[in-house]
């Protein structure tokens, strides 16, 4: 009897709990600013994220310097003048899937559309945001996608007059992550 209890406990405590946390260090993030004058795009596939299937909690962080641009000078200006990467090296999102309910079952292929609410930290400024996200389970693997908009002004990112036509005040952010159990 004791053995059964023990093994049951073990399976709960190890397999169960551990598999509930899903992680990736290769999440894709893109931000895209579009104006009639110029389109600017920064991408990285080095963002990291954890999704807790038990609670619906979700975090994501990225080093600002990991973003790549089509023009080297854009990348330099992005880091040096806009997000000030040396002072504020990371962007961090910490939130929770709203109305999460029951844990997502990885044995059933499915797509779930929900909202995530949390705080986004960029350039040392925290802002509460609520974004749409969709989680897809396929063959026991979970992926998550989200597209949302941020404004540089909300994060105290100053855009000088000379380039005000080149940088949109509504920047599209795309997030895509495929997770593995922690």
């Amino acid at each position, binding site marked *: 009897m*004791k053995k059964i*209890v*023990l093994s049951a*406990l*073990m399976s*709960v*405590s*190890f397999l169960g*709990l*551990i598999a509930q*946390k899903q*992680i990736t*260090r290769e999440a*894709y993030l893109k931000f895209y600013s579009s104006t009639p004058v110029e389109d600017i*795009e920064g*991408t*990285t*596939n*080095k963002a*990291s*994220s*954890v999704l*807790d299937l*038990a609670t619906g*909690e*979700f*975090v994501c*962080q990225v*080093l600002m*310097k990991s973003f*790549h*641009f*089509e*023009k*080297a*000078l854009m990348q*330099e*200006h992005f*880091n*040096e*003048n806009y997000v*000030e990467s*040396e*002072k504020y090296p990371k962007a*961090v999102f*910490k939130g929770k899937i709203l109305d999460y309910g029951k844990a997502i079952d990885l044995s059933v292929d499915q797509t779930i559309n929900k909202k995530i609410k949390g705080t986004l930290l960029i350039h040392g400024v925290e802002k509460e945001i609520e974004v749409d996200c969709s989680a897809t389970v396929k063959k026991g693997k979970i992926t998550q996608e989200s597209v949302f908009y941020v404004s540089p002004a909300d994060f105290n990112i*100053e855009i*000088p007059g*000379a*380039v005000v036509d*080149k940088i949109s005040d509504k920047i599209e952010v795309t997030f*895509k992550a495929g997770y593995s159990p*922690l």
Partner: protein
Amino acid sequence: MKYVCIALLLFSFELSAQDDLLDLLEEEPQIEYAFATFKGTRIINLQSNELPAEGVMQFMIMHRFGALNDDFVYNFFGLEQAQTRFSLDYSFKDWLNVGVGRSSFSKTYDGFAKVRLLRQSKGAKKVPFGIVYYTTVNYSTLRWNDDLPHNESERLSYTHEVILARKFSKNLSLQLVPSFVHFNLVEDRETPNDIFVLGIGGRYKVSNRVAITAEYGLQLNDNFYYNSEGNKTSYNNALSIGVDIETGGHVFQLHATNSRGLADPQWMARTPGSWGTGDVFLGFNISRVFTLKKPKLPEE
């Protein structure tokens, strides 16, 4: 046995109690390279440790107006006596840049190469300063105005520079540039062909897009010629101060300098005028970059 169960239970609680998921994302420190030590590939006349990125072509215009002490108003504030240098360079690699230039002073063509040998970094790899090697060959096409026989090689002069640069903070960057200048032809028998110069340069950013710059070319050996009256006259050290203004794809550099020459051997070792006597030239550099080869962007 009971204890084992309790321990396991506690352990499992502990796992779930690790509520800050961010702790799971802690990463090992990475190598962080210093970037944007200077805004331009030149501080003013002196080369900075910056190279354009791989696949980027740079066009640069350097311009010096007439001297303040040379009938400044009559010459429309020196605007009518400009010296210029145009250059075009291309970075084959992030660490290799080559280019050509033409200066109006002494009608000189030049070819140059710039190679990054070491990058300043912190984090997983700590390197306190960066090292860049820069070299030029200069070919003057000025017509000979004496009736003496000349070799083509007399038109050539060279520089070798080792650029040691450190970005101390977001705002402050300094560099030392031990340099060697060689002229195949010099004015007088006693004028040295080889001049050692210690370039000293720096910038201080006053805002994200504006920086104050200064540089000095300290000649380490006696560099002189005999003037028309036969008096021994030393060449001066070049001192320049300026402002960098950055707007998108351009860098504007506005400055004042006692050096009129723009090609490296000229400003380092052929500066006759001094600040004290008003031999000061206002000028600017403008650079514009073109991305010829687009870098590969990260994919999903």
